[in-house]
């Protein structure tokens, strides 16, 4: 190949610095030193390419003809090959075909002497990445190599991302299954296969019903894929596995969501399994204990109350005024103990209901507005100005509707109860980084700094001169905190005694 009149390396030293710097940076951004092979029968071209690209940080090898090039390719992997199409002996097209079958990820740039469109197109069809017509300047070479490096980097980023994700998912103790929208397995981690007692190790690409025989799980995937693009519901179920002779029964919490492209089309599903057997057993113990408490404490207290009422109403003989007064006080105390045990039962019921709960996409601002409306009357009765600040942008989070309503109602009603007449309560919602946030701010009595950590504890109540007369059991904020935590959220309080308090709830936004 000697048709070129021009020296391709001419002016190499005078290349603008920026161009050189840009390839060098790209090369250095790759984790390893990229290997490049030049196959050309012209010594000048080989030497010039080698000199220039070595400076750019490449490890460069050269071959004067196709046979020698192929030998090198069989020996090792090259990231980029610069390949002359027209050489004596083995042609560039033959080499190209061989490279593609040996190393499909190698980027081949063909050098074509008589820059005909036909040859270039044919080479591209056979898998070449780009072409470089002779004669070419060092600048032409840099540009085409820089483009190839960019391409390799992108592929490498994808590969890195994939391998990082695989490592991460394989380490998880929760089971993870991803399918495409044809219900073909894209990924299932070892924990998933173990939880379902699936003996197979290679499952990628097989239909999901080959590895999953639980009808509940298959149904969840079906439902997730059928979700229209205007709604996103996290489907949650409990699945019982085993329980036959040999293996102990396991209770799995399963959650399934579709994942989507930018246009909202369902591309597939992700299912996460977590073993809640122990949690469920503990919960059983707890609920047994709670019913015992109900039966053993609440029952007798109620009987005592009935006896007291009989005596108070004179069924056991006439009473003096003093006796009536004392009995009245005793009944009040017993009644408050009864209502405390009822609230305790409620808390236990709510907490056991929080395990593995169904969550859906919720408009937090709208939910907040509903709850505020329910409290208007209460606010008006105390002449408190109840203000709902509209959000700047939609505030959406994944959550359980009933439970979040409970949280909001609780915070608003607390604010109203602990704010003196004529005060102000502001309810707001917004987005902060990856959280949907809502807040209730009052101009109430406030909470001393040392009390702020303790208000979320069960039965804890702040007692000051002003709040003494406000009744409550001290369970409201404990319930609120339990609910927020099962949503992977947080609750914070900021308060200054005498000025007021702000309760702020952070819920993770939907990241799908």
């Amino acid at each position, binding site marked *: 190949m000697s048709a070129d009149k021009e020296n391709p390396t001419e002016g190499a030293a005078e290349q603008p610095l920026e161009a050189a710097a840009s390839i060098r940076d790209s090369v250095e951004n790759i984790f390893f030193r990229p290997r490049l092979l030049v196959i050309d029968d012209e010594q000048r071209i080989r030497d010039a390419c080698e000199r220039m690209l070595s400076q750019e940080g490449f490890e460069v090898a050269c071959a004067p003809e196709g046979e020698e090039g192929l030998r090198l390719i069989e020996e090792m992997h090259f990231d980029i090959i610069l390949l002359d199409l027209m050489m004596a002996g083995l042609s560039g097209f033959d080499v190209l075909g061989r490279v593609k079958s040996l190393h499909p990820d190698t980027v081949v740039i063909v050098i074509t002497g008589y820059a005909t469109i036909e040859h270039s197109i044919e080479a591209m069809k056979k898998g070449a990445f780009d072409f470089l017509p002779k004669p070419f300047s060092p600048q032409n070479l840099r540009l085409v190599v820089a483009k190839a490096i960019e391409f390799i980097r992108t592929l490498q980023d994808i590969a890195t991302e994939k391998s990082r994700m695989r490592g991460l998912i394989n380490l998880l103790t929760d089971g993870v299954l991803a399918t495409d929208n044809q219900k073909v397995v894209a990924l299932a981690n070892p924990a998933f296969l173990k939880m379902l007692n699936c003996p197979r190790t290679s499952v990628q690409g097989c239909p999901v019903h080959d590895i999953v025989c639980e009808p509940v799980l298959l149904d969840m995937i079906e439902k997730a894929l059928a979700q229209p693009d205007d709604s996103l519901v996290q489907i949650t179920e409990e699945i019982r596995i085993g329980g036959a002779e040999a293996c102990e029964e396991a209770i799995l919490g399963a959650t399934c969501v579709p994942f989507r492209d930018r246009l909202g089309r369902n591309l597939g599903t992700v299912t996460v399994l977590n073993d809640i057997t122990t949690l469920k057993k503990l919960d059983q113990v707890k609920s047994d204990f709670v019913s015992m408490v109900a039966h053993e404490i609440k029952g007798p207290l109620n*009987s*005592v*109350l*009935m006896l007291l009422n009989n005596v108070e109403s004179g069924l056991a003989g006439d009473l003096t005024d003093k006796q009536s007064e004392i009995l009245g006080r005793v009944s009040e105390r017993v009644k408050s103990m009864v209502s405390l045990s009822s609230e305790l039962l409620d808390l236990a019921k709510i907490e056991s209901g929080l395990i593995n709960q169904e969550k859906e996409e919720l408009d937090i601002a709208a939910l907040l507005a509903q709850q505020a409306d329910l409290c208007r009357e209460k606010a008006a009765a105390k002449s408190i100005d109840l203000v709902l600040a509209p959000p700047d942008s939609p505030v959406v989070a994944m959550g359980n509707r009933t439970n979040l309503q409970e949280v909001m109602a609780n915070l608003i009603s607390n604010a109203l109860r602990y704010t003196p007449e004529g005060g102000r309560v502001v309810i707001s919602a917004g987005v902060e980084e990856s959280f949907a946030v809502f807040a209730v701010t009052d101009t109430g009595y406030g909470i001393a700094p040392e009390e702020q950590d303790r208000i979320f504890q069960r039965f804890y109540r702040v007692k000051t001169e002003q709040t003494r007369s406000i009744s409550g059991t001290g369970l409201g904020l404990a319930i609120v905190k339990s609910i927020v935590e099962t949503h992977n959220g947080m609750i914070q309080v900021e308060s200054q005694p005498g000025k007021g308090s702000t309760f702020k709830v952070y819920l993770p936004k939907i990241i799908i």
Partner: protein
Amino acid sequence: MSEPKLIMVVDDDPDLVEAVSMKLESKNYRIAKAYDGEEAIEKIKEEKPDLVILDVMMPRKNGWVVCDEIKKDDGLKSIIVVMLTAVGDAVQSTSYTHHEGKTTLADDYIPKPIDMDQLMEIVDDHVGS
């Protein structure tokens, strides 16, 4: 004037039996008492009360079984049975539901904790003069 009606109060909590009995006595009913299911059946056969206030969760024999035995006995089935149920949790241990208790077995029911006025109304409705 006819003899006052006989009401039997059955519960394993003696204080509850005492409280309900006091109230009924003040309204001129005659009272019989039992503290578990077996004792209740024996006394019902012996004393033939007009109405039984019957707890569900009791040792030896539960209230649903007692109720069933009353209603299947030709000599006893005219006795009015009012079940005391802590609706929701106490009933789980039997195959009867609260609903069945009301419509097919017992004549009436009242949830625990007892609202004494409501109980008196129920009793008066069934056997009051």
